[in-house]
């Protein structure tokens, strides 16, 4: 019995390993290319392993091409709109999870948020482009902050709603009975209890802000307001591609959300599936 089962098991393990290699080879090759020297780019044939690994491409892309400014823009836009999205989501989720509201109110709020998740950015950005130009926010960070805040509300609302619903109502009620005001109960009881959830939602929202491309491409024009992904795209569509610099920029673009998602890994799937999947 046991020996019969070992062979297929080995085969499946080999198959899984094969899948993993196919999946991760492209990322390996990206990192490898980012570590190559300029001279190596002109070798007759591209090499799988950098001959003389160096971080030079990272330096030249960040400082030589001043992508550090775009990195700063991305971080500012990401942080501000993440905080805004979470504050608004709190104001919407607190009444629907902690206070008596009708079933219809709750489901219409949640349905609205869900429907927003499926709007096509390109369809929204066309009218938004006109608005932004009319009110003089074209090529300004606040335009991006506003649109990112709205587009990340669905995720923020659904994640917060999930986290808040898990905290028993009794915890706040105990504080209210002891004479605390609603605000005090919120500030000193609920907020500390929902810290982990807020942090997880914030991390995931920030990662999405960081990755956003279409709005930033259309609503900005110069490094004053461009975000990091727009800079990465700029390195690709040039007449001649400097492969190591393009790869280095992509590695930076990937590293930041990747680290964040790995930190918040237990909540990533919950966020992406709007609470349907709960991992561990």
């Amino acid at each position, binding site marked *: 019995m046991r020996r019969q089962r070992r062979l297929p098991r080995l085969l499946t393990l080999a198959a899984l390993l094969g899948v993993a290699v196919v999946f991760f080879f492209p990322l390996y090759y990206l990192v490898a290319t980012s570590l190559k020297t300029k001279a190596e780019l002109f070798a007759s044939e591209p090499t799988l392993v950098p001959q003389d690994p160096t971080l030079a491409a990272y330096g030249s892309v960040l400082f030589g091409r001043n992508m550090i400014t775009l990195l700063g823009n991305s971080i500012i836009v990401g942080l501000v709109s993440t905080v805004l999205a979470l504050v608004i989501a709190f104001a919407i989720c607190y*009444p629907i999870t902690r*206070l008596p*509201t009708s079933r219809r109110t709750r489901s219409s709020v949640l349905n609205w948020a869900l429907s927003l998740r499926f709007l096509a950015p390109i369809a929204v950005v066309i009218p938004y482009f006109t608005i932004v130009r009319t009110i003089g926010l074209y090529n300004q960070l606040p335009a991006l902050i506003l649109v990112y805040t709205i587009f990340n509300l669905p995720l923020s609302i659904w994640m917060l709603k999930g986290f808040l619903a898990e905290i028993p109502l009794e915890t706040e009620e105990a504080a209210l009975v002891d004479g605390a005001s609603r605000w005090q109960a919120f500030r000193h009881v609920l907020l500390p209890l929902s810290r982990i959830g807020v942090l997880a939602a914030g991390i995931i929202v920030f990662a999405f802000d960081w990755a956003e491309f279409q709005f930033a491409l259309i609503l900005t024009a110069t490094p004053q307001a461009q975000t990091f992904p727009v800079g990465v795209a700029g390195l690709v569509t040039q007449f001649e591609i400097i492969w190591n610099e393009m790869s280095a920029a992509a590695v930076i673009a990937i590293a930041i959300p990747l680290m964040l998602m790995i930190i918040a890994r237990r909540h990533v799937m919950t966020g992406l599936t709007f609470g349907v999947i709960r991992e561990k």
Partner: protein
Amino acid sequence: MGGQVTAVSAQPPKVLVAVRSRQERLALRILLPTFLTVVVVATIPFVLAVIESLTREAEGFVGLDNYVRALSNPSLYESLRQTAIYALVVVPAEVLLGLGLALLVHRTIRSAAVKATIYVLAIIPIAIPQVAAGVVFRLIYAPEYGILNVILEQLGLIDQQILWLSVPALAIFSVASVDIWQWTPFVYLVLFAGLQTVPQEAVEAAQVDGASSWAQFRHIELPYIRPLILLVLFFRIADVLRVFDHVFILTGGGPGTTTQFVSLYLYRIAFKFSDLAQASALAVMFMIAMTLFYTVITRFMPLERD
């Protein structure tokens, strides 16, 4: 809380009613201003798109003329067809591959540590910004510098470069492969999580009865994961219909118009031809189509809306 009171007596004491309605008022006082502001801000672009789609800069109100122009442009239908082909390649591939992997891992991997490792590895592609995914595959498919041709040449499989991104018949599949690479792990993660909820006793009972592994899937596991397959289809179709970023990086819609999917087509009309009036008409129709799609399909979603 209020529910408990009404459950005890049909006529709740007056004090409790007062307390309850005070809380209800508080709820609405917090919820309504925030929610309405957000809804208004999010709806303004739509209203503006409708207005713009009925006017033209020089002429003012032009009725449905922009819609007529948009709908009589043959490129629109070409872009719809290419988007449909893309969706028909990408979505089934992702769901079948993801399902296959989920079953494989679910049935062969016992160790919790290995499962946890696979979970983290599967998150990696999801975390990658799509622009960066485009860059990654530029390195794979590009002419001259692309590593795929080099590997195939060294293995003796080809003796001439294949232009993955500029042969019209190939480009759409090269672009599709990036989507499959990036989103199959998401399908895997959702379906794997679903398989974890299948009760072990049911599986064991079936195995004692000598059920084949297909029968085990068809009659025991599938009923548990069917709602999740729907969920995955919903998310993937919605995302695929508005695909933009990695295609923009890899082909920019070309060669010709073979990868000019709906979002790229709208981008071209609006910002390359600067025809914002026609683009607004397209945007309005796109939003309405997505809303219909959304309304129909969410009825079948296993989402908790309370």
